[in-house]
């Protein structure tokens, strides 16, 4: 059945202005009942929500979350995840498997003198970085290891413990107190370390922790 009148076809083939019909005045239908119900439901909900969450008109943005803010303040600090620090900070150079990049970034796995050696060395490397020639697993590297002194003691301890106990490595844990002790003792140091410096006894130990450095070589 054709539509009673099809405005789109009116005056077809005539220029645009001649094929328009006037805009008709609006109809006068009354709003349906369900619309009023919706409107009042929305208004009721609004009033309820306002009452429930108006927060006493307090200017404190945490007003409604004071318990939660307090709870967070009381919480035991979460242990830092060394593996996560490693993925974020070290993995790009030393790789996920700890094998480094041949000739450029030395391996951390089985790097006996450095990673799993006396605690003082890796701590110092992390705090201030390292540069110049060094030997790892029989290969010579000569690059620049950035310092990570801006990480806090917990983070440095966690990532060092992580690399000392990952892959084939199995050495003792490093604690935040040890990191703090070295940071304290080397407070004046800004330049990166060199291999020669770190291989001395003085730079291998953690002051106040370890008086019997492990013999190297």
């Amino acid at each position, binding site marked *: 059945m*054709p*539509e*009673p*009148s*099809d*405005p*789109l*076809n*009116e*005056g*077809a*083939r*005539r*220029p*645009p*202005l001649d*094929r*328009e*019909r006037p*805009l*008709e*005045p*609006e*109809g*006068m*239908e*009354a*709003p*349906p009942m369900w*619309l009023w119900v*919706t*409107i009042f439901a*929305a*208004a009721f*909900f*609004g009033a309820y*929500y*306002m009452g429930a*969450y*108006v*927060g*006493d*008109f*307090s*200017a*404190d*943005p945490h*007003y*409604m979350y004071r318990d939660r803010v307090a709870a967070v303040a009381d919480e035991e600090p979460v242990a830092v995840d060394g593996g*996560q620090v490693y*993925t*974020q900070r070290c993995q790009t150079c030393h790789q996920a498997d700890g094998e480094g990049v041949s000739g450029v970034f030395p391996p951390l796995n089985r790097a006996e003198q450095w990673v799993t050696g006396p605690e003082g060395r890796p701590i110092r490397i992390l705090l201030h970085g390292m540069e110049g020639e060094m030997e790892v697993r029989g290969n010579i590297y000569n690059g620049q290891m950035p310092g990570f002194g801006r990480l806090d003691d917990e983070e440095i301890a966690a990532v060092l413990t992580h690399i000392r106990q990952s892959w084939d490595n199995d050495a003792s844990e490093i604690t935040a107190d040890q990191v703090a002790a070295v940071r304290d003792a080397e407070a004046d140091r800004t330049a990166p370390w060199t291999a020669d410096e770190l291989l001395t006894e003085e730079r291998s130990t953690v002051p106040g922790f370890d008086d019997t450095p492990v013999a190297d070589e």
Partner: protein
Amino acid sequence: MSTTAAASVEEKKMRPPEGWREEVDASVRWPVIAFIASGTFWLIVGSVLALLASFKFNHPEWLVEQASLTFGRVRPAHLQTMIFGWVSMTGFGVLTWLWARLLKTKMRFGWLQLVSVAVWNVAMVIGTIALLAGFSRSIEWVEFPLFVYIIIIGAIAIAALPLFEMLRRRRVHHLYVSIWYIGAALLWGPFLLITFSLPIYEGVAHATANWWFAHNILGLWITPVGLAAAYYFIPKVIGRPIYSYHLSILGFWTLALFYNWAGLHHLVGGPAPQWGVTISIVFSVMMVIPVVVVALNHHMTAFGSLKAVLRSPTLRFIVFGAMSYTAVSLQGSFMSFRFWQEITHFTHHTVGHAHLGVYAFATMVLFGSIYYIMPRLTQWEWRSSRLINLHFWTTALGIGMYVVALTIGGILQGMTLLDTSATFMEAQFITEPWLYARSIGGTLMTVGHLIFGYLLYSIILKKGPELEGPVYFAPVLRSGASSSSAS
């Protein structure tokens, strides 16, 4: 003299003469074309900027050598060219035409609008270059340097002068609902710009004013023009009256009352006082009322005219836009809730929502309006219904993909961000496929914009074959029984 006689004299003076449409359309021809063409230019500039920004999500290392092409500059430049170039300028052209048609009076001092277009374009050029050169105010939605907004406010004021003059000389008694929306937007838009340009905010108050402004530019400047166009074209093309005058009134005044309060829901979880945020959530929910009212009014008008919607380019775009308005508004009411924002805040989800509003609603309605207006202004038909069809499907599918991808991708991103065992990067990687889909959608839309730009160029310069009769998606029936009965 009796009062009735006076009234009828008055009425006679009011009645527009025969052929008023030709007269009225001729008077607004060049200003409206200038606004629409400029807006379309900015649409294409904005699309290129958008694609740059979008591709950077897929290939972060792409085009990073020049500071001017980095994400932090391209993205605000995209936003500003789209809002103050495309939507605002084209919107001004469309509202000027609607205004003239609905007041049935011709525009005097049309040259003022041409001056306005020129000034406005200069402001846009300066602003865009400034953003790319690094002079951003870093305030979302108002990144241009301050003086650019002052020029734009001036341009709007100049362009509005002839419109107010027309209101004085109107040849109608009853002001149609579209006139209310446009008139209100002409007051609200500059008011928003002026108020937020004042140097009186600091800190949390600044953030609060910022979101009040940004949300209202959408709700009280862009939305009213879109609704005015939908209110005009749906009944006009279908040939049936708007369902209910009462609903029109209800929809207008509830929008006017509620929208203004909603902006602060952008600061959920931020440092603003709780009660302010709560009030904005309440009014975001109350926005359901004007939205349902308008949807009902439009739906009841278009109901049963599916054929016309499928055949007429104007209607197809506008009905798509009107449906998107309902969708985006209801989604927005829901998104204002705190429990939901815990997931979606600061994710791509919000970006999807913004495009559902500014694109799927406002932009599609503008396209539809232009398909109706231009043949009247130029006395020339669109060159090809195929191309219009292609324009519709590229943009409709493009925005569809875009919104679906970011809506889902954003939720996944938000849930991963909340998961304390996941790293920040995991929350980024999970969005990868969705961001590819976004780029594909954006590319489709841009193709559509180029087609539209070509069609617009052709009709303004009267290129292409001289066609007889309207360009519809289906062939026009030869004047048969149905058409001879009318007119």
